[in-house]
């Protein structure tokens, strides 16, 4: 259960960040509705943010592993 809550908090934080970053990138002048070009932009931005999140995760975890191996040498 603790693990589920953690996964949920993690997903929630990711959604919040995507919301913040992609709103600021894609909706520069908020209009009467979220038009189709804004929706396309948010969809692309969201995919890019998750890609970036994966790249950053890999880079960080691999660094942490290298550092902890260095310590044990």
């Amino acid at each position, binding site marked *: 259960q603790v693990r589920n809550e953690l996964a949920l908090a993690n997903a929630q934080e990711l*959604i919040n960040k*995507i*919301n913040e970053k*992609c*709103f600021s990138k*894609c*909706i520069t*002048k*908020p*209009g*009467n*509705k*979220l038009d189709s070009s*804004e*929706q396309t932009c*948010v*969809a692309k931005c*969201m995919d890019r943010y998750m890609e970036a999140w994966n790249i950053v995760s890999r880079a960080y975890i691999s660094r942490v592993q290298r550092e902890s191996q260095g310590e044990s040498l």
Partner: protein
Amino acid sequence: KELGKFLESENARMRLQQSIHTFTDLCWDKCINKISNKIDRGEETCLTNCVERFLDTSLFIVKRLEETRKKL
């Protein structure tokens, strides 16, 4: 039990107020450039749309995430 209900509704009220602070902060930066004697019509419309579009974006993201998960 009554206390529990009361505290829960106060909690909801607090989250509501926190959201209002967050949106005012965000939409102030997006909509207000010059400090004038009154918020004009254009700025007011911008503020209202800013809140609405931010929430639309939020719903759009959650919906799309769920669709992606279903496809997996």
